[in-house]
């Protein structure tokens, strides 16, 4: 299915090949996803990516490196990706990352704080709060980042590696949001519909704005 908020065109724009029909390199990608995430948990995003299996595999390994090998908390990275999904208005991405954020220990109120770009209320360390602000600013205008912004991170002991890890969290979130948005890739069956209402709210607001214009 497509994104919840696109009720007028509910199907993805490319074929999402089911797990039991995958062959060759596509099957290799799906197998790697299931080994990492569990049986049946091949997300629709990676079914879309599997149209170009080598890129799908490269992007999944990029995600695994980001989430598994970095030093910043998964809660922090999922909070950033939840916020990016809200900025990009990708309802599947909001639901996916908000669910992952909750699985990383966040309360419902902390998930809402991420959706409201309010790092002080997400339950992050002072360092990760500063990095969250930096991430949102870098996403908003990367060329507007100044040395003073980086100096402000250093006050919290942020390392070069942590800055790169943060920026790659932004890159990864945006890249996945773009694939899902441009291909109308919607929620996975194994996703429970957490925060599904975000897309419906955006759609209502767009209709209200259209009427007012």
């Amino acid at each position: 299915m497509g994104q919840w908020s696109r009720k007028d065109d509910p199907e993805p724009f490319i074929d999402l090949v089911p797990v039991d029909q995958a062959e060759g390199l596509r099957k290799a990608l799906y197998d790697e996803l299931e080994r990492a995430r569990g049986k049946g948990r091949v997300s629709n995003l990676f079914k879309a990516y599997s149209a170009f299996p080598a890129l799908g595999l490269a992007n999944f390994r990029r995600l695994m490196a980001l989430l598994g090998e970095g030093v910043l908390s998964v809660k922090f990275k999922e909070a950033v990706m939840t916020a990016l999904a809200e900025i990009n208005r990708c309802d599947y991405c909001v639901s996916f990352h908000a669910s992952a954020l909750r699985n990383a220990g966040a309360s419902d109120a902390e998930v809402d704080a991420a959706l409201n770009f309010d790092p002080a209320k997400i339950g992050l360390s002072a360092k990760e709060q500063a990095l969250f602000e930096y991430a949102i600013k870098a996403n908003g205008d990367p060329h507007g980042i100044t040395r003073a912004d980086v100096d402000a991170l250093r006050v919290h002991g942020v390392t070069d590696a942590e800055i790169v890890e943060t920026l790659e969290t932004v890159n990864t979130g945006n890249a996945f949001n773009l694939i899902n948005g441009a291909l109308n890739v919607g929620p996975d069956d194994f996703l429970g519909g957490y925060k599904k209402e975000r897309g419906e709210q955006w759609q209502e607001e767009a209709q209200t704005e259209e009427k007012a214009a």
Partner: protein
Amino acid sequence: MTTLALLGSAEAMERLAASEPSVLVTFTGPRCIICKRLAPMLETVVREAGAALASAKVDAEALPEVSERYEIRSLPTTLLFRNGTLADRITGFATAGALRAWLAKNGVTPVTA
């Protein structure tokens, strides 16, 4: 989120600025990418401010006389009016956190319904 209403004339801009104790107006444009990224930040802080803050947006190209009057040199530029007078401005992108601090510095504190 709370979508900011688009103002259609210089008169509407003047009326709004004079009508409420605190008014936020952001100057934007259809080709301004950073404006699109700023929008959810603005919408969030406007919603949080509640009745304490009125808000709107202006298409800078559509209303050049308004842009000239407020010396809009680049987009996005966000203005804050307090009691009918231009009190402060932010040029470029700002996070929701930076906007919250900016509003607080200018005496705008959220009012919950």
